[in-house]
């Protein structure tokens, strides 16, 4: 294609000392005036590809041509036509919005009258005009992204490279960002948008779907989604435990994948297989199977070889926890002030035994602060946080023995081996001797860690790292689990598997508190609280929240729709 803006030909990148190539044999052509999505979980090679195009890395083999030029050899002319927004914004947090713009303008040689015009245009475009004197570090996540975008747009690039601009940004800002990008391509710009959110893939015109350095799919997202057309169904109104219905459904040979969606269960069937019988799934008399729109994510799962199945070996070896459904975790007027800023503001909630309770919100909304107060890592400024009726901060290691904790970044000892990590965490929770050995071996078996025992978590594939972190958190069979962004960045199959374990444990009576910024992940929760600017703006079951915002035009809103509507309601008041 002669009119292609970017031509990637058999591009390969192998980092020194890395076992696997970061990018394998990738060929694609990006057309001008289109949004191309680089879609895939962490470690897929998205950032590597973007950095290769930006001329920041040299490919190990293969060629890259941008308007016929080589990103390394012809770096100088290419710099004029490429705008690049790295993951961490590339902003100077101690400079104001205006100063950041000026700095980038100086670097790009945008001067004189042109500069004035450009600034005015960009500030208007990004809606940052009234914030020019604010320090970049003091902007919200969404505004930082917009400023980053404005800086990348200086000098009118033909090719705009955006590295995960949507991560952790609140859904409203994310929609605004998308709108801006659509305006840009209308002017003929070519945009590369990398993302780990699979729902964003459907918004792109072309998609490069990547996983572990391999290109799984290149083309229009509809073509990918069409592969699984007429195979997505929802079991509406199942009676009994929807988790057990899902578990049974996933055992069914015709079912490729399934997730919980509020009170419903969503299933994707294998190719050319008939619908499963609802009686067989014991879904109850009122249950019905309704066809639903296929999603990009379903197609991705199929490309990865299908879902992980519904049985949690981990949960099977757990003893059922008996007891009534009394309140286990409770926050009462919980507030945390950092100076004058209220990171958590008068938060109340209560979680009953055997429930999954989710805190849902964008980065910086105050989820983590609330979460850390609940598990005793941070003292509240006022109010109380209690687990089993005890303030974990003051107390007692006995109460903490009841707790499993898994943090966002899978806090493992990066330079100890997998085996040493397992031994350590089991030892810390008081396991010793034969029992310790038996449980550690169980974990190795359940999570299939045998081949990795002598290597360090730092070199583990992300999915296994997550498994190891979960193993370390649950070895002592805690009746309460605290999970902080447990699935960020992992591929959807690993995410399914993770939730299979959690569902299995909840069925045994484990109580779970989880934070997430994945709107769709909230559907696994029994109840969720939407957190925005330190406050809980709404709480309830996922279905309640969604039905709250249902309108005649949008009778079946997504969690993201619900979030946006509820935030707007809040700000209108």
């Amino acid at each position, binding site marked *: 294609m002669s009119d292609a803006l970017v031509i990637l030909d058999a591009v390969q990148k192998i980092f020194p000392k890395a076992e696997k190539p970061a990018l394998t044999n990738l060929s694609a052509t990006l057309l001008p005036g289109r949004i191309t999505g680089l879609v895939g979980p962490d470690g897929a090679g998205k950032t590597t590809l973007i950095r290769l195009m930006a001329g920041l890395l040299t490919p190990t083999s293969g060629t890259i041509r941008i308007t016929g030029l080589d990103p390394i050899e012809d770096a100088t002319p290419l710099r004029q036509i490429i705008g690049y927004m790295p993951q961490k914004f590339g902003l100077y947090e101690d400079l104001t919005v205006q100063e950041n713009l000026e700095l980038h303008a100086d670097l790009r040689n945008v001067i004189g009258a042109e500069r004035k015009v450009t600034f005015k245009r960009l500030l208007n475009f990004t809606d940052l005009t009234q914030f020019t004197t604010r320090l970049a570090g003091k902007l919200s996540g969404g505004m930082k992204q917009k400023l980053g975008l404005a800086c990348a747009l200086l000098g009118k690039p033909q090719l705009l490279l955006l590295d995960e601009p949507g991560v952790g940004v609140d859904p409203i800002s994310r929609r605004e960002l998308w709108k801006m990008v659509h305006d840009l391509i209308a002017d003929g710009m070519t945009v590369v948008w990398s993302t780990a959110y699979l729902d964003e893939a459907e918004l792109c015109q072309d998609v490069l779907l990547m996983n572990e350095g391999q290109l799984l799919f290149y083309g229009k997202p509809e073509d990918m989604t069409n592969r699984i057309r007429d195979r997505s169904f929802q079991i509406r109104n199942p009676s009994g435990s929807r988790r057990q219905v899902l578990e049974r459904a996933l055992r069914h040979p015709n079912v490729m994948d399934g997730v919980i969606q509020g009170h419903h269960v969503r299933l994707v069937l294998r190719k050319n297989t008939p619908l499963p019988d609802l009686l067989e799934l014991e879904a109850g008399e009122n249950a019905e199977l309704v066809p639903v729109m296929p999603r990009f994510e379903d197609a991705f799962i199929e490309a990865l070889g299908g879902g992980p199945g519904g049985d949690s070996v981990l949960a099977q070896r757990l003893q059922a926890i008996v007891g009534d459904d009394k309140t286990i975790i409770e926050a009462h007027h919980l507030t945390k002030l950092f100076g004058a800023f209220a990171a958590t503001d008068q938060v109340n909630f209560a979680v009953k035994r055997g429930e999954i309770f989710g805190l849902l919100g964008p980065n910086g909304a105050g989820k983590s602060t609330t979460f850390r107060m609940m598990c005793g890592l941070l003292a509240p400024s006022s109010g109380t946080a209690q687990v089993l009726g005890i303030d*974990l901060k003051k107390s007692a290691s*006995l109460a903490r023995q009841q707790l499993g904790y898994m*943090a966002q970044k899978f806090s493992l000892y990066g330079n100890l081996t997998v085996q040493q990590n397992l031994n350590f965490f089991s030892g810390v929770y*008081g396991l*010793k001797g034969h029992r310790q050995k038996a449980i550690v071996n169980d974990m190795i078996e359940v999570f299939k860690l045998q081949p990795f025992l002598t290597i360090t978590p730092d070199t583990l594939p992300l999915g296994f790292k997550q498994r190891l972190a979960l193993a370390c958190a649950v070895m002592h069979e805690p009746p309460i689990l605290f999970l902080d962004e447990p699935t960020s960045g992992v591929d959807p199959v690993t995410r399914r598997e993770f939730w299979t374990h959690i569902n299995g444990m909840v069925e045994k009576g484990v109580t779970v508190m989880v934070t997430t910024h994945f709107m769709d992940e909230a559907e696994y929760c029994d109840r969720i609280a939407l957190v925005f600017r330190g406050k809980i703006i709404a709480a309830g079951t996922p279905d309640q929240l969604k039905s709250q915002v249902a309108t005649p035009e949008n009778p079946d809103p997504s969690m993201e729709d619900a979030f946006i509507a509820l935030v707007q309601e809040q700000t209108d008041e």
Partner: protein
Amino acid sequence: MLSRIVTLIIKELQMLLVDRSSRMILIMPVVLQLCLFPFAATLEVTNNTLAVFNEDDGSQSLELIKRFSKAQAFSELLPLYSELDIRQVLDNQQALIVIRFPADFSRNIAGGHSATIQALLDGRRSNSGQIALGYVQQMLLNYNNERLIEQKRSPPSLLITRNWFNPNLNYVRHIVPSLVAIITTISTLIVTALSVAREREQGTFDQLLVSPLTPGMIMIGKAIPAMLVAMTQATIILLAGIFIYQIPFVGSFMLLYLCMVFYVLALVGFGLLIASICATQQQAFLGVFSFVMPTILLSGFVSPVENMPLWLQYLDWINPLRHFIVIVKGIFLKDIDIPIILHNLWPLWVIAICTLSAANWKFRQHLG
């Protein structure tokens, strides 16, 4: 309880020993300092240049110059020919000391009068200059005495110096025992402060805090590995001192290790205190660095504590190294008595108790 602490200690040791780079951090300073310090950090003056401006042409000045040139302290004798030369050689640090014989030097001696010579020193190198001057004075004194004896006159009373505990004033004997203290200082602080900061960065510290471990247990889990590392390093230096540098160890090993336990505890307290106020490894490293420098400078290793202004001497009391260096050198070279050890040991107890409780309090508060 005990098994959890053991788990913590095993983990800490694995972290220290598994990783190549952290292993190097523990071993390299010991080896390097042990090789370099005893030779480099010496206050002995040898191999210096003595410049002579001789305006005298008699035999007496020549005799003295001959003696100077034989002295070990001066490997080179630089003859000067004008006053201008004097300024130049001192300015350019070509000579440490300049001796000037006036024109009437030999004449005065022959005439039985007292004769003068002038010594000019480079004040920028005050210590070495003083010592060099001492050598010169000693040689002049010997010369005088010999002349008096030749003339069958009895010389004035003689001062005979004998250095106890280090009869040959061998500098290695000062350095190596001090090294025992200094290297343990550095590594203990690094092991404690940096390991806590690293856990903070990795997020594993949170993981420890939500576990049933108490802050006290976590602190013990940090203190004991640091202690083991410090003791091992100290042992290596001790052995090297005894077998390689041939310094006789006259005191009691038991006593020394007992004192070391308290010293390391005091350091662990400081290390944890630094760690409790630092969020990153970088901050912790800077914290350790800015603590170690004054600690060593004010320990009495570089210059005697008694030379400091009084207020600084009082302030220096909180410097654990100052007390421990006295103990190490005392036990190593002198086999000092228990009361003297106790006199220097109780400050270490006080420091350890204060810093450890402060760190414990700070950790609890930090969570809050």
